[in-house]
């Protein structure tokens, strides 16, 4: 019961159109496995039957379920550690020196999945910024389901085991039933919004730091380039961009240069205005 070539083509075209994620040949098995629970939920007897129905009567809810099922939402707290260490030991001290006038830091977690990344950022900023400073964090993702989960700010036992230092767990979360809920003081500093990074981006005030991690890998090079370009417009001239460990701007978008940040690298806009004369944004 493997997927027919036509069904696979239909799904990969749909997913590509809606999210720019490329499902190349060889992903048939993945598509089938991920769609089994979706098909079951709708009462269809098989993935083939579910796909036949949706091709006959296109329905946006079913379509967005397909897209949701085929995006990988894998994430964890302080993922890979090094970017967060670089943030607190190098990036924030520099920003603190440069933003003395308004004492406010804006961070964007683009493709935030279920929220571990933006809340990790919030914890890092809360622990690092001196008294009198404020910050705000925007978390966005293409998946409505992920945004809903992130907004709820509740994580299972298994999720809090993954990369969250226990001291940070007891300081920033409270136990409710089987879950751990982000404390209100932290929750308030993060806002969430559904956003497709490959569609035209809304007008947003620029950010000091952007985490765009583990999402470019799903796009082809043209899409990567256009995402990097449009996000560059939302990064402050002296801001910082962090990508996933397997991602780079090199060979994709020359407007960025790679710089050492602690034990990892980050990316900065080449035409960066010298430190201290950055515009007000």
């Amino acid at each position, binding site marked *: 019961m493997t997927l027919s070539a036509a069904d696979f083509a239909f799904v990969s075209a749909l997913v590509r159109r809606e999210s720019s994620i490329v499902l190349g040949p060889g992903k048939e098995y993945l598509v089938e496995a991920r769609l089994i629970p979706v098909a079951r939920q709708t009462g269809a007897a098989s993935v083939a039957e579910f796909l036949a129905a949706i091709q006959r009567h296109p329905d946006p809810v079913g379509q967005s379920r397909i897209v949701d099922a085929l995006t990988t939402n894998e994430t964890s707290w302080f993922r890979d550690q*090094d970017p967060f260490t670089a943030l607190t030991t190098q990036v924030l001290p520099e920003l603190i020196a440069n933003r003395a006038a308004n004492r406010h830091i804006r961070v964007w977690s683009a493709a935030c999945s279920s929220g571990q990344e933006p809340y990790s950022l919030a914890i890092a900023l809360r622990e690092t910024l001196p008294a009198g400073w404020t910050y705000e964090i925007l978390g966005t993702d293409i998946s409505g389901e992920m945004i809903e989960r992130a907004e709820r700010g509740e994580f299972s*036992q*298994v999720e809090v*085991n993954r*990369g969250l230092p*226990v001291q940070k767990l*007891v300081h920033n979360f409270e*136990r409710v039933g089987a879950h751990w809920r982000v404390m209100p003081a932290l929750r308030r500093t993060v806002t969430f919004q559904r956003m497709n990074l490959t569609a035209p981006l809304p007008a947003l005030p620029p950010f000091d730091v952007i985490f765009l991690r583990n999402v470019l890998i799903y796009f082809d090079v043209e899409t990567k380039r256009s995402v990097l370009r449009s996000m560059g417009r939302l990064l402050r001239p002296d801001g910082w961009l962090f990508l996933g460990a397997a991602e780079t701007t090199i060979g994709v978008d020359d407007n960025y240069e790679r710089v050492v940040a602690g034990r990892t690298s980050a990316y900065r806009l080449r035409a960066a205005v010298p430190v201290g004369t950055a515009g007000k944004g």
Partner: protein
Amino acid sequence: MHAIVIDDSRAMRLILRRILGQLGFDVVEAEDGQAALNVLEGMEQKPDLALVDWNMPNMNGLEFVTAARDNPQLREMTLVMVTTESEQSQIVRALAAGAHEYVIKPFTSGAMVEKLALLGLVPSGASL
């Protein structure tokens, strides 16, 4: 690197031994806190890491952690509780007694590796 796994369940010791073994640790086992203290007493080179269950017969994990903290010879050993005890108040108690990290059961092997990476005992980004 050396580790001691302290749990009254043989299955759980085996799971932990498997994970640590794949990360290159030499592992010894003990089935409760008292047995662990006895094993440690006789060891020339003390382990770098102890994974400690909470609820065990004879001497429980909290008592073991307290005893290990009070023993100058075991001061360098990193103590990680691995337990179903997961109320905030219990976690705070274990930390106050001297535990460095805390893994709540059930845990995936990936989560265990990530916790050890947080402690600097395996390289960050390590996986099985």
